[in-house]
């Protein structure tokens, strides 16, 4: 494997960690301290006892750097498992966004029409605003936000990516 090359790739990495104080700081500190990219990072407890959290990190780098990132994550004491979903095969990536659009008259109609096309749900409405909820790939949310901008996009809140492998294969 002498010439791994300088080609960059994106990687969606799932990390199962012990849900203890400071664990997120360790992961984030590792990325900043070693100069790795974080394109997105999400975290939440995922087991019934709340002891295990799942972190999804989207990052990019050369193959050697991505291998390093995984090895560095794996040697953190509270880390149970590191999985490179991008490398391991088909997987789903989703993000949730809450998108506030402010406007009156024609623009409101246009906003609703576009929301319908993107399958965004209205979760809050006033006479001068909507909050849309949408899930999907990051690009879909980007595209929706871009269309809303001239109409009156006021505020966006996004979760960052969560991901899971397709099929019966599990992480634990």
């Amino acid at each position: 494997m002498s010439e791994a090359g300088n080609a960059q790739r994106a990687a969606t990495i799932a990390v199962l960690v012990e849900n203890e104080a400071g664990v997120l700081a360790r992961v984030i500190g590792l990325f900043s301290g070693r100069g790795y990219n974080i394109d997105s990072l999400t975290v939440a407890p995922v087991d019934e006892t709340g002891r295990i959290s799942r972190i999804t990190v989207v990052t990019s780098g050369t193959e050697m750097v991505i291998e390093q990132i995984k090895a560095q994550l794996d040697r953190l004491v509270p880390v149970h498992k590191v999985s490179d979903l991008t490398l391991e095969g088909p997987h789903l990536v989703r993000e949730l966004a809450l998108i506030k659009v402010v406007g009156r008259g024609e623009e409101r109609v246009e906003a609703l029409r576009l929301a319908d096309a993107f399958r965004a749900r209205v979760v809050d409405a006033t006479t001068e605003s909507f909050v849309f909820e949408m899930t999907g790939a990051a690009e879909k949310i980007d595209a929706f936000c871009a269309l809303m901008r001239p109409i009156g996009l006021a505020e966006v809140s996004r979760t960052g990516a969560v991901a899971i492998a397709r099929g019966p294969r599990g992480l634990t």
Partner: protein
Amino acid sequence: MSAAMKPASTEAALTMSGAEVVLRALKDNGVEVIFGYPGGAVLPIYDAIFQQNAIRHILVRHEQAAVHAAEGYARSTGKVGCVLVTSGPGATNAVTGLVDALLDSIPIVCLTGQVPTHLIGNDAFQEADTTGITRPATKHNYLVKKSEDLARVVHEAFYVAKSGRPGPVVIDLPKDILINKAPYTDAPKTEHRSYRPQTEPDAEQIHKAVALLKAAKKPVIYSGGGVINAGPEASRLLNDFVHMTGFPVTNTLMGLGAFPAEDPLFLGMLGMHGTYEANLAMHGCDVMLNIGARFDDRVTGRLNAFSPDSKKIHADIDPSSINKNVPVDVPIVGDAGRVLAALIAAWKADGEAQDKPALAAWWRQIDEWRAKDCLRYRQEGKIIKPQHAVKRLYEITKELGRETFITTEVGQHQMWAAQYFGFQKPNRWMTSGGLGTMGYGLPSAMGVQIAHPDALVIDIAGEASILMNIQEMGTLAQYRLPVKVFILNNEYMGMVRQWQELLHGGRYSESYSAALPDFVKLAESFHAKGIRVTDAADLDAGIREMLAHPGPVIADIAVAKDENCFPMIPSGAAHNEMILGPDQEGGVAGVTDEGKVLV
């Protein structure tokens, strides 16, 4: 964990304060000595220490020194070193020591005091965010917020410090947790929930490695600190494997002692100040076996010119060390001792013959490189060459035949110690390799001497470095530790001066050691013996006087002021672009602009 301790009953446990639980857990983890410094936040632990005899406390004079002492203790015994410091400034003073232990993979458990839990976050007196500050300075750290977690956390800290790739662990202890009653629990017998490093190598990878090694025409074994970390048995196995194969072997700075320096199969240290033969063997080899070394930049030189034509096998207990700097062909994850045992077994089982004629030709080539005699120097006249001072120190201690441990500070003297002091056994050589911490050597020697009271412990020092933890002379006096400080006094931060000479046009900006103390008087003021030697004719007598003295000594050896440390691979250069000394022929390679930005 000491087998003598039986499980504590819960009733008995509930009568203990948190501080007592901490001490009990330390004892159960085999701690005999703590290096520490008191303060308000840790007074409950000091109170508990006062009321027991199982654990000895060594009062240092600065918390950084406590960590280095624990490192010396750990590196010379293979045990975990233990440190106790107070909150705030106590903890921040320890940080340099922690990073030092992190980079050199030394197992340390450091207890830090903390303000009581209800004051955390309030900018209370002597509060520092110790877990925040030490997160990137440790292998792992803990803040204990509940009394019932206390015993478990201490046990876990020892497990983490010593398993896999060893390193420093901090336990931050709020004062109320130390005072309140806490239950004691024994170390769990079950596996750790998440941290379970792989020690046993994969058989398939071992076979691939043996196949490559058997077919090698120009092999080299490059071993590092990981072999020392793996315990003395690993060094013995390395010896067996090298002799079984007849392969040349070189050690990193951190690996010195894993293979006997005087064995003809040893090429000496490699890297920036390594030998000509070791570096050229690395450059020209066709198969490289790296065992427990991490392809550090001090070793590889310019990466894109590093050992360009070799297949590389890398065995390391930490998967993140593999393919970090140098892509390898056969990665092996495992403990160096287990890997060597597996390689030996597989080598014996393998039916293939070695290419003996090729190996003989390779040795002839190596012997040609050796004939350069790259460590030759000329000792003429009165002025003492620093190399000569180390060489004589080595020869005289060898004559004496006492168990000898060497520590160093950081700089040229450190490199000369590595080049001219021959180590025959592991765990006899303590140096700050990764962080390069000036001020490491004296406290480290202190820790070594505590662990080996009857041994000869020498800190080979520079006059600048020694001043960085000179206050520890007080600790030597208090505990009657007969450490010898052997200063190669060139009146310069020699390593800095050398770089300025070679890379910055001889502009010696701020590298002169002005206003030095009188080291003889300084020694005397700390109740030690002071010796000064200025003439080469008196060197041996000075060394003998130092070694014969039963107490601590500072020997201030005035050496040539402008001596450079060679060979040298300048930053950004390749192994085959090494600069040799004035006593060897060989051109001075220029330093490229790219090289200049490197350290």
